[in-house]
């Protein structure tokens, strides 16, 4: 299954002033698109409004030809969108296997086992700890489990919120270059939020730079890495304007 993700004019917040304003982006199947920017620039909020966790006050979210604007998270998930949040990303009291089973909740029972095996092939480490409680995993293992959970449904669209936070640089690089890149090469549309701009640029087809709740610039990695404005808008944040 493949589908394009298209967001137009998204404005959203948590009551009070909007955190993000009039943001538009799109991710085609097979593409990795990254979202970078300083903390507080609204990256997580944007992802949440695409995943149905936050309801946008304006704008539309389309996955393929389905309008998912403002739909509940469970409906967005059923429409083929896999969202990995930044925190609270696993079911802590459940085992690794049960976490994966939860990821495969929408599957028929006969399919669940096969999918677990497939996920374990992608993340062999998980295969050695299927009966371990998720709360007892290390940071890196937890992130793998969070990704594995989402992989169970083979969604058409992936929304990843800082999947490399807490990970050692080498592990982060592996996660991005091997696993995230492969999601796209398998046909999905991947939207990934990251703070480590350089690392994620290396695997992106396109990057959006967010600052102060708006899109500051966008371009391919080649274009951006030679742009002085890119470094400045990313590092300077809102104070040095």
């Amino acid at each position, binding site marked *: 299954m493949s589908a394009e993700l298209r967001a137009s004019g998204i404005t959203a917040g948590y009551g009070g002033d909007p955190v993000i304003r009039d943001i538009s982006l799109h991710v085609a199947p097979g593409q990795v698109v990254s979202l970078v920017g300083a903390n507080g620039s609204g990256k997580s909020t944007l992802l949440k409004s695409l*995943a*149905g*966790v936050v309801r946008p006050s304006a704008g539309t979210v389309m996955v393929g030809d389905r309008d998912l604007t403002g739909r*509940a*998270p*469970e409906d967005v*998930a*059923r429409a083929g969108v896999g*969202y990995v*949040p930044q925190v*609270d*990303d*696993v*079911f*802590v*009291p*459940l085992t690794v296997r*049960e976490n994966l*089973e*939860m*990821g495969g*909740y*929408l599957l028929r*029972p006969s399919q669940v086992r096969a999918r677990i095996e497939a996920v374990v092939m992608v993340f062999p480490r998980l295969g050695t700890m299927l009966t371990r409680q998720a*709360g007892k995993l290390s940071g890196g293992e937890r992130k793998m489990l969070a990704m594995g*959970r989402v992989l169970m*449904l083979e969604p058409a669209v992936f929304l990843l919120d800082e999947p490399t936070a807490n990970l050692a640089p080498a592990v982060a690089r592996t996660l991005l270059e091997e696993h995230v890149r492969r999601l796209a090469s398998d046909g999905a549309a991947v939207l990934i939020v990251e703070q480590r701009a350089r690392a994620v640029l290396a695997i992106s087809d396109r990057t959006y730079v967010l600052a102060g709740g708006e899109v500051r610039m966008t371009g391919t990695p080649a274009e951006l890495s030679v742009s002085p404005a890119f470094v400045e808008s990313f590092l300077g944040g809102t104070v040095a304007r």
Partner: protein
Amino acid sequence: MTIFLASLGFGLVTASVLAIAAVGFTLQFGVTDVLNLAYGAVMIAAAFIAYVVNQAGVSIWVGLVVAVAAGALGSVLLNAGVYTPFQRRGASPITMVIVSLGMTLIIEFGTQAIAGGTSVSYSMGQGPAVSADGLVLSTVQLVVIGLSVVVMAGTHVLLRYTRLGKAMRATAANKNLARNCGIRTARVITLTWAITGALCGLAGVVFAMDAGSFDATSTDLFLILILAATFLGGPGQAYGAMLGALVIGLATEISAAYITPSYKYVIAFVALLAMLGIRPSGLLGERAG
């Protein structure tokens, strides 16, 4: 030794009633994060519904089925009509508990208003006594124990092996993530209240059977046992509630054999306060950092 065995027998029956009740209570907390203090009131209301059916000339076991259904329906309405709206507004846990106290008054004394203040009993035979080695139990008591075992086994199967049970555990562990998995948590919560409400109704009837005679206020003290069993095992932990029920039920009845029976609740009380003071997450719960 006979005293000990006899009290052991009573203890098993109490533990059985308590297990059915505590499992329902703790699961309600696990999935909704509300201490539903009106649980005891719903129990006794269900007991009275069974009584009404019984008085109409029908067997009490049919009454039990009706009570179970009533408990399920009533609990779903309680959560959907009262607790959920307050929670949606962001009410604090204290407010929720005061609301549950208010609902306790409404349900308990509403039952008393309708049923009257005098004690009643079911019209039922106790069945032949069964004895083994000095331990004597009536058939009805054995049935209660059997029902409890069935409930515990069923709960185990539900939580471990069924799709709904896993969805319940996921919702209790991390509601937002459960939704991201496509789980319709609102539906899961409603079903949880239906199931635990059914347990509540069942607990009410077997409680009344065990007590012999009862009135609308009979479950006031029993709620202490439920709370003690829940906190011993850990709020939200179904297996903890089973363990807690066994410990509290046995300890209560066995101690009653050796000290004045009126004080048997003291053990539960001490256990509850000790857990609250030392380890509120319970024996089986996660220690809070």
